[in-house]
């Protein structure tokens, strides 16, 4: 992962609010997006991520607050004058035009000569892998091709920021995975800021330098993918991104940079204060990702800690197996995932097992 901290700021939100009548769609958005960053707005539908994207593009006014793009306040700048371009969820390809007319649409007022514009269109099409498609009718294109046309049409104007509104949601799984890689390559090639709206956490993790996770009009956490995954700021983020086991715990003591807890089924654990994000006032639980738990076979020894377990359910997936395991003779059930490798048989329901885990993989929500 690249660190974006040393790059200049491209977009800045200061306490942005948006109301639709009584509905409070954006509830105090703050944060910055860096130049050249691949940034994602991630959240469930209705969380305000698309609204936020549309306020950047200028399709929606904001009720209060400030949006700065490249150092300029956008309050009085209309959509058609902003240094942003958008790839729409429906791609919004103009159906009555050819591919080349679509791509060249934004060049209408460009002072360059006809030949130069045609050359720019050809280059843009080549960049998205549609060389020679210029004369095709737009409505005859496949989904993936439409998306490429939309990309070329936006990028030909050399925007400072490219906005992508769920651009991959209409594609099938194979095509989506293929386009994810292509988009990453394209972003590196052109070097401008990409802001992607998605509800697919995997897509956001794969593609982004940084991700803002949004719930109910607020940014719940803004971090790079690894931090987001390993140190989610609260249970909601933890649940939305990947799978996490939650185990009830009791806080025994908190001294300086250490927190000592008693987790049901795991016993006493001393955690670093970095493993305990800002308290939210909930009943304390510790979170554990399935892959940080390991079943111990035969005479294997745990590197750090181990706990007794009883297998309740086995879910075989081919390359790996999920086990739901009761911990330490309690009713606390956790899911753990094991790679299936030769010489390591898949265990049966009801088997008594030993589970290895590491205190440093725990996150404390309280």
């Amino acid at each position, binding site marked *: 992962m690249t660190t974006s901290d040393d790059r200049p700021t491209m977009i800045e939100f200061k306490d942005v609010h948006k109301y639709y009548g009584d509905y409070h769609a954006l509830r105090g958005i703050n944060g910055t997006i860096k130049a050249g960053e691949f940034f994602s707005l991630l959240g469930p539908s209705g969380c305000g991520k698309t609204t936020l994207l549309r306020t950047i*593009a200028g399709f929606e006014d904001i009720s209060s607050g400030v949006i700065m793009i490249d150092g300029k306040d956008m309050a009085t700048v*209309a959509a058609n004058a902003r240094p942003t*371009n958008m790839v*729409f969820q429906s791609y*919004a390809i103009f*159906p009555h035009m050819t591919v080349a007319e679509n791509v060249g649409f934004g060049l*209408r007022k460009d002072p360059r000569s006809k030949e130069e514009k045609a050359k720019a269109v050809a280059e843009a099409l080549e960049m998205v892998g549609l060389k020679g498609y210029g004369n095709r009718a*737009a409505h*005859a294109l496949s989904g993936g091709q439409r998306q490429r046309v939309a990309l070329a049409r936006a990028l030909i104007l050399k925007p400072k920021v490219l906005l992508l509104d769920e651009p991959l949601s209409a594609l099938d799984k194979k095509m989506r995975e293929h386009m994810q890689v292509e988009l990453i390559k394209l972003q590196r090639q052109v070097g401008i800021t990409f802001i992607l709206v998605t509800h697919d956490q995997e897509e956001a993790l794969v593609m982004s330098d940084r991700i803002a996770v949004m719930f109910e009009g607020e940014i719940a956490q803004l971090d790079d993918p690894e931090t987001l995954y390993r140190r989610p700021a609260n249970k909601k983020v933890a649940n939305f991104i990947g799978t996490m086991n939650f185990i009830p715990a009791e806080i025994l003591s908190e001294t300086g940079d250490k927190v000592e807890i008693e987790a049901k089924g795991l016993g006493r654990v001393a955690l670093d204060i970095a493993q305990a994000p800002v308290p939210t006032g909930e009943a304390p639980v510790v979170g554990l990702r399935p892959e940080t738990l390991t079943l111990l076979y035969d005479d294997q020894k745990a590197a750090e800690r181990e706990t007794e377990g009883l297998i309740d359910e086995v879910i075989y997936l081919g390359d790996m197996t999920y086990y739901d395991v009761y911990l330490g003779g309690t009713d606390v059930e956790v899911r753990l995932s094991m790679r299936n490798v030769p010489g390591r048989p898949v265990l049966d329901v009801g088997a008594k097992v030993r589970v290895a885990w590491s205190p440093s993989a725990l996150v404390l929500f309280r």
Partner: protein
Amino acid sequence: MKKAPFLRSYTLFYLLFLYAPILLLPIFAFNSGKVVAFPLQGFTLGWFSEMLADENLRIAAKNSLIIALSVASMSTVLGVFAARASVRYSFPGKAPIMGLIMLPLVLPEMIVAMALLVVLLSLNVPLSLFTVIIGQVLITTPFAVAILTSAFQSLDKSLEEAAMDLGETAWGTFRLIVLPLVMPGIMASFLICFTISFDEFIISNFLGSGQPILSVYIFGQFRFPAKVPSMLALGTVLVCFSIILLGFAEYMRRRGIAKAGGKDSGGFL
């Protein structure tokens, strides 16, 4: 498809009932007998030449054409304003305004005509082709609004946003994106308003100045048995004319759908 011999023959019979009077048009328009009666006499084009020689008919046809073209243009323009506003924006008073615009669809036409006539008479406005036009526009505008509303509704809003996003002004977006895509709807609206106006009787009769207008003229002529055969010739011409116009409207509609890459979902009514 399942076979349904009874339903099929019923439907064919129904169509025959619908078409029966119209089928008489060409039969007797080319029949040389002076009276509309079987058995047929001989073939003649005489009724057509009598029709063409009729000076009053020519004036009536010209007047009707002027009225229908004006009415179709006016109601389509008014329809574009209303349909665009109702699809695109929400504003106070939208429901009552749209309700008033669509009201003539559910009012007996006679009442619309009489209400307008009473006001025109009390304001001492002389009746003319112009008063027929403004009255008919009230009747045709709801049809224009209905057709154009569905045309504007099928327009993806993100297309307009995309054009704005790519630097176009509001007017540029309307001219380059919206207008070409709703053009089939505009054409269909124009053709249908034209047809309704051309055929309209009540307003033409009561708000006209006594100048001949085709529908009123035809109505009058049918009372004279001697005039009936040439009216049947005229009817034959008008039916062919309508079918051509309708075929054209249907063609435009299909082209519009094909252009937008959509699927055909039935007739344009």
